[in-house]
């Protein structure tokens, strides 16, 4: 049961991620961004399989909800038409990219074959039923990880100021 759900989610994630850049979806950047939303939903399902409930909800709320909105704004802001890009030309950097991707996939496939696939997960599912819930994560976040939490606010402050400086016409 678990294996079946995992494979459905995993194949869905990979397929929708590939669809972001590969035609027919990838030809139009807006369609690509919508395909990314589908990928994020599948990823949220994988987080549920990992018993990370809060992260799964945040994946849908923040990534599928907010970040993709920003992606869409950037796409419409640039508004690159396919005529602007011209014909795709083979370049040396594309060749290097293909070689690098091929090398990494061969290494990964080699590792998987050597270990006879991934039959046993290295760590079992947590036995604690509250693992990964809002309360457990919150208790850790506001006690042990208080400094990163407060630093987040400074990071967000910097993001706001940076956005205003870059995008505002008259300061």
């Amino acid at each position, binding site marked *: *049961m*678990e294996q079946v759900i995992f494979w459905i989610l995993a194949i869905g994630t990979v397929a929708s991620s590939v669809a972001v850049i590969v035609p027919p979806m990838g030809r139009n950047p807006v369609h690509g961004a919508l395909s990314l939303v589908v990928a994020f*939903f599948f990823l949220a*399902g994988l987080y*549920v*399989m990992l*018993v990370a*409930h*809060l992260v799964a909800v*945040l994946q849908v*709320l*923040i990534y599928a*909800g*907010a*970040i993709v*909105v*920003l992606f869409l*704004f*950037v796409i*419409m*802001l*640039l*508004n690159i*038409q396919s005529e602007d890009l011209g014909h795709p030309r083979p370049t040396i950097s594309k060749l290097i990219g293909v070689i690098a991707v091929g090398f990494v996939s061969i290494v990964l496939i080699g590792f998987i074959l050597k270990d006879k696939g991934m039959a046993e997960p290295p760590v079992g*599912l947590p036995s604690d*039923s509250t*693992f*990964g*819930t*809002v*309360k457990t*994560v*919150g*208790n850790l*976040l*506001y006690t042990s990880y*208080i400094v990163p*939490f*407060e630093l*987040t*606010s*400074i990071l*967000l*402050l910097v*993001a*706001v*100021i940076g*956005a*205003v400086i870059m*995008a*505002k*016409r*008259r*300061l």
Partner: protein
Amino acid sequence: MLDSQIEYIPVLIMLAICSAAIGGMLTLNFLLGPKRKNAIKNAPFESGEKQIHSPKRRFSVKFYLVGIFFIVFDIEAVFLFPWATLYRQWLRDPAFAWVAFGEMFLFLGILSLGLVYVWRRGALEWD
């Protein structure tokens, strides 16, 4: 499967039903719907306003600015959510409740500086 994961099965069923309903409606419409193509039928707003210009044009960067503010304050709200869920539990220990209150006060204080900055810079105005 854990109990907490089995709780998600209704969500999965709902997603499946929604996808099937939308996909079914679109496919049936595509297969069964009448197709009479002419210039008027292909207009974006049939029997409506004529198009002034193509919608495929650049958007103003101002939309992006609003988008960034939305994300930043969305993330701020996300951090408030677990805190608010836990606060009643922390109230049993008044000493820690004040600490928790103070840390969220500091968090919101720093982000309010951002809001004040945005406001004073006039970034919320659509000029």
